[in-house]
C-alpha cells in the first residue's frame, strides 16, 4: 500500500519467517528486538497483519513479557539479580551501592543514554552470588567495584 513506510516493510520482512510456526509471534517480536534494540510503534500493525491478529492482541503479548521494551536501552545494560539466593549474599546492599555510584535507579536509563540498570530475577548463578550480567557478560561474586569497572571499560571501548 502507498502509505506503508520503509520501516514498516522492514518489520514485515523480519516477522515473515515466523508466521505459521508454533509460538511464532513471540519469536517474531524477539527477532525485531534483536535487530532494532526495542519494539518500535509500528510493531503492532506489522505483527497483527502478518499473524492475522488484532493490534490489541499483539500489544497484549508485548506488554506481558519483561524482555520486550518500547524504548531503546542504554549503551550499556547492567542487570543485577534481585532474587533470594543473591539477597542472602548481599544483593540488596550491592544494588544500593551500585545505584549510588552510577547515579541511577533500578529500571531507569540515564539521561545521556549511556546506561540502563535493571533488576533480573535469577540468572542461575545462585551458587556464586550476588550475580550480574553486563552487556551479556556474566559476573559472579559481584561487587560495586567490579561492576563500575566493567561499565567504565565498556564505555571506554566504545569511544
Amino acid at each position: 500500500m502507498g502509505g506503508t513506510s520503509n520501516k514498516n516493510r522492514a518489520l514485515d520482512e523480519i516477522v515473515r519467517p515466523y508466521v505459521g510456526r508454533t509460538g511464532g509471534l513471540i519469536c517474531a517480536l524477539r527477532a525485531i528486538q534483536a535487530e532494532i534494540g526495542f519494539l518500535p510503534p509500528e510493531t503492532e500493525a506489522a505483527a497483527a497483519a502478518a499473524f492475522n491478529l488484532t493490534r490489541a492482541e499483539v500489544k497484549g503479548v508485548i506488554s506481558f513479557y519483561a524482555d520486550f521494551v518500547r524504548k531503546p536501552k542504554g549503551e550499556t545494560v547492567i542487570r543485577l539479580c534481585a532474587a533470594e539466593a543473591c539477597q542472602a549474599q548481599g544483593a540488596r546492599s550491592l544494588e544500593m551501592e551500585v545505584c549510588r555510584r552510577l547515579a541511577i535507579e533500578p529500571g531507569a536509563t540515564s539521561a545521556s543514554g549511556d546506561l540502563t540498570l535493571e533488576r533480573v530475577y535469577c540468572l542461575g548463578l545462585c551458587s556464586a552470588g550476588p550475580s550480574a550480567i553486563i552487556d551479556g557478560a556474566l559476573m559472579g561474586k559481584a561487587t560495586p567495584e567490579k561492576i563500575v569497572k566493567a561499565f567504565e571499560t565498556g564505555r571506554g571501548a566504545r569511544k
Partner: protein
Amino acid sequence: MNDAPTIFIPLDSVALALGAEEVAAAFLVADFDIVRTGSRGMHWLEPLVEIEVGGARIGFGPVDAGDTASLREVLLSGNFAAHPKYVGAIDELDWMKNQQRLIFARCGIVDPLSLDDYEEAGGLTALKKAANTPAGSLCEEVLASGLRGRGGAGFPAGVKWKTVAEAQADAKYIVCNADEGDSGTFADRMIMEGDPFLLIEGMAIAGLAVGATRGFIYLRSEYPLAERILGEAVRIAYNEGVLGADVCGSGKSFDLELFIGAGAYICGEETSLLNSLEGKRGEVRAKPPLPALEGLHGKPTLVHNVLTFCAVPDIVRAGGKAYASLGVGKSCGTMAFQLSGDVKFPGLFEAPFGLTLRDLVERIGGGARSGKGIRAIQIGGPLGAYLPPSQFDTIIDYEALLAIGAGVGHGGIVVFNEDVDLLEQARYAFEFCAEESCGKCTPCRIGAVRGVEVIDRIGRGEDHAENMQTLTDLCELMVDGSLCAMGGMTPIPVQSALNNFPEDFAFPSIRRTFAAGAEKTP
C-alpha cells in the same frame, strides 16, 4: 603436537561468571589440548581446572588468571601437589564420593557437544533399547520407577505418561519445561550446558512411549549459554539420526525444537507455558482440562521439567525397579539438590532422597561461609518455606516436608545467616508475586499488592494487631482462591516466616533493618 597434555576447563555459566574464559585463554597459548566441559557442581572451586593422569582427573581450583602461569609449570612438570590450588583427584573428594550421580553422571566430565563422548559414557543405550520396546512397556517402567515430577509439583510421572499414551488424538506433543525461574536453582541450567544430549534422549524416549512425534523445549531467555549449547546439540542429534524421521532406527519420527521465552516467571507454570509456547500472553489456564489431555494446541501433551526427562534414560536402561529402590517412602530415585546463599560449599549435590536438611546445610554445605550463625533456609524457590535450624532434622522427601508446611520444589536450598529479616523476606515474596503474577485471577493479582501494603504497615507498627490478622486472612484467601501455584503458594514463604520467626513481625522489632516506604532508613 601429539603428546600435549589434555586439560579440562568448564564452560558452564557459573565458571564463566567466575573467570573461566580468562583462564582458558591463558592455556590456549601453551602446549595443551583444552576440552571444555560442564561443571562438576563444586562451585566454590570454580573455575576448576582438571588434568587427566592415569585415568584419574586431578583438579585445581579456584583458579584465577594470576594462577595460570604457575599452574602451567606444575601441569607440565607433573609435580601437581606443589601448587597452592591443588585439590587432588576429583573422584576421591568427599563431595563427589558421597553422591550417587544418575543424572549428573557425565556432567563436568565430557565435552557436552561430543555425541561420541556421550555414547562412550553410556548415552543413547536407553533410546536404542526404547526403539525396540513396546510403547506400553516404557510407560510401565516409568510408572514402576516411582519417578515424580521434578519441577515442584511432584506428580507421578508414569501416570502422566499413561494418560497421554492412552489419549486418542491426531497429534500429541512432548514439552520440556526449562523455564527454571526459581531462585536458588540451577540444576536444569547445569545439565543443559553440561550434558544436553541426556535431555534430548529423555524427550525422544518419551515421544516413542506416548506416541508423540513433536517436542519443544521451552527455555528461559536468561540462559543464553544453555540456548547456544542446546541448539547446537539438537542440530548434531538431527545429523546423527537421533532426532528426525527415524529415531535411532526405530522407524518412528521425533522432531525437537527449542523455544526461547521472553522473561516471565509465571511461564514455569505448565498451562501458562503452553499459552506462551503458542505465542500468546503467558496467562494460566483453568484445570481441568489437564494438559495431558488438552495441552499444546489443544492436543494431549506430556509436560515435564528438565530433570524429569533426564531421569528417564537411566530408568529405561536399568529398569524402573532399580530406580524405585533408591530413596525413601514415596520419594524414589535421586534428587539434584542445589545449595546457595551463605554456605561454605555451594553447588549441586545429587543423592537419593533421605538426607536431612542438616546433612545438606551443615555436613555437605559446611555451614555459613561468613562464619555467622545460620538463621533460616528457604527450600523450593520463591514459593518455598523459610525454615529455622530447629527443623533441620527433617528428612528431605515430598511427604516429610509437606508435613511441616514446606516442599521439595525443584531442590534448591538457600541459606540465610543471622542478618536476615524474615519480615523483609515475606514482603519480598509478595513483591515478587505482584511483579510476576499473570493477572488472570484476582487473589493473586490484587492479593500480592495488598500483601506488600499490609506488611509495610506491620513493619511500621500501624494498627499492628489488626494488620497481623489481615495478613493471615489474606494468605488464607490466596491459598483458597488462586487459580495456580503462583498465588496459591506465595503464602507459603509468608506464613512460614510468620510462624517460624514471629519475633520479626513484632513491633517494635529489635532486628528491624529497614522501615518501609517513606520512612526508609539507611
